[in-house]
């Protein structure tokens, strides 16, 4: 059976999860990636959610981080202020490996927009806003999930909801943020992008069947593609676990 792009994205997300480490997860593909990791190479990865539901192990895919489905086998259901206190402290102690985020627009430095398209004061399209993502981007390394389109990969985001590397080396420190934390990877339906020494995004991997030119055609800023390799096909067992165990109802993949 053909491996779909979304399945490849889920596998790429799962690869960002290391066993025994803690990750802040949102719903959608990040949760699928996290669950896949726990069901394969990272059974002891800890997944935490901004609703204060810690270490939930859903059997059915939740539609929201507040979904009752997420409560299964959770360690605690904390009031949210406890969760955010813990998130801030644990991130500063280096005990949170990364947070997974999505957005509508991203720039070469990984600054993300989930607030609006167009002028903030007269938006052409208004989105739901930051949610908890601003705090995650303030304190933690992040892995970002995006649709790969020219209008989304832009030179400058219309509104910076979640700070990335700001404008390059030293950018975060200048704004009062921890310089050692920031965006790590961007996963799209075309491949995986990472950030270099200059804190700019570069193309690290393309998925099989995707050309480097496809990526360039769908990116609205100069992108270094000199390091791009073609990602290996996931093994059949991983795809079986993804489609039969993690998301058997095919809600997400």
């Amino acid at each position, binding site marked *: 059976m053909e491996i779909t792009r979304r399945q490849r994205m889920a596998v790429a997300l799962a690869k960002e999860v290391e066993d025994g480490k803690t990750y802040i997860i949102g*719903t959608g593909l990040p949760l699928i990636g996290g669950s896949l990791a726990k069901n394969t190479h990272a059974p002891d990865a800890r997944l935490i959610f*901004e*609703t*204060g*539901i810690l270490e939930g192990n859903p*059997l*059915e895919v*939740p*539609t*929201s*981080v*507040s*979904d*009752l*489905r997420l*409560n*299964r086998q959770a360690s605690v*259901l904390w*009031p*949210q*202020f406890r*969760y*955010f206190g813990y*998130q*801030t402290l644990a991130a500063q102690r280096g005990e949170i490996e990364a947070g997974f985020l999505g957005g509508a627009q991203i720039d070469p430095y990984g*600054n993300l927009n989930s*607030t609006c398209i167009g002028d*903030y*004061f*007269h*938006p*052409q*399209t*208004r*989105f*739901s*806003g*930051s*949610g*908890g*993502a*601003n*705090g995650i*981007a*303030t*304190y933690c390394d992040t892995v970002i999930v995006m649709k790969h389109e020219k209008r989304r990969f832009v030179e400058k985001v219309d*509104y*910076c*909801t*979640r*700070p990335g590397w*700001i404008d390059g080396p030293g950018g*975060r420190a200048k*704004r*009062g*943020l921890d310089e050692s934390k920031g965006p790590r990877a961007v996963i799209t339906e075309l491949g995986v992008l990472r950030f270099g020494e200059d804190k700019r995004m570069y193309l690290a991997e393309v998925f099989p069947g995707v050309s480097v030119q496809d990526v360039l055609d769908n990116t609205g800023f100069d992108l270094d593609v000199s390091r791009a390799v073609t990602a290996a096909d996931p093994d059949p067992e991983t795809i079986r676990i993804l489609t039969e165990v993690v998301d058997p109802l095919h*809600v997400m993949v």
Partner: protein
Amino acid sequence: MNTQNKLMTAAEAIGRFVHDGDCVAFGGFSTNRRAYGLVREVIRQKKKDLTVESGSAGGDIDMLIGAGCVKVMNISYIANSGFTMVCRRFREAVETGALPVEDYSLDVQTIAYHGAALGLPYVPVKNMLGSDLETLWGISEEERKKYPKLPAKKFVVAEDPFEPGSRLCLVPTPKIDAALVHVQKASPDGTCRIEGARFQDEDIAIAAKHTVISCEELVSDEEMHADPNANTLPGLCVDAVVHLPWGAHPSQCFGYYDYDPAAMIAYDKASRTQDAFDAWLAESLCQDHAAYLKQIGEERLSGLKIDPAAGYVPGLKRK
């Protein structure tokens, strides 16, 4: 036991404790334990000019916006997650400039509500620094003069007095007039118990001048006081208790029911235009909660009752 009976109807509770122009905070999270029953009563009573505080809002707040009850809003998120990714009456109101909003992040709102519940005037955080949440204010200092329930400034950025050179965002805590929260159990003296995730609900209830509780089950004061360890709020923080079984419908209620996908999908459609919303509201608001439940129908509701072992409805059709 020295009890005080706070039991009343939704009409009486909203009539007494929610006033035009108030700052009102709402419990729950997106599609979980939102106080829909009380919100519908706010709409029935045509409350207006509300300043809305809601950490992670859902369709209930979108209904208030569509019904013309909201003057201004502090926001970090508004969606029926999984059904409507950005609530549509909200979206149109902001895109047309009809609704002024101030953006925060959920972490900041949560910390600010907790600060309000601690009696603090503001909370110092690093969150929002470096983003446009810091640099762009949805509502300017000048405009804020029109909204007496909003703080005079979104925040103040200052140097940490204990760590020179380190920047902090000093975020004023909200002055909440009324909090509306749906809980699982409450008793006439106002003692209540939230089961499952509690979100920001204790904090807004403690911070608010008046708190209106709706409950799935009304139990005796004796029963609640027999197990104080399981209780969330004392009656001291509660002004009204309204017995509203299915009061969070169409959102979820831990231990009782799942969300109602048919209602969520119907709302997604109905909220696409103001005309469709108005027609939908006229049909679905009903004269009171009992009439609302009768319209939904027992059969549909019983299909939403959770499987106690799973904690939700396994295999629920969600599309």
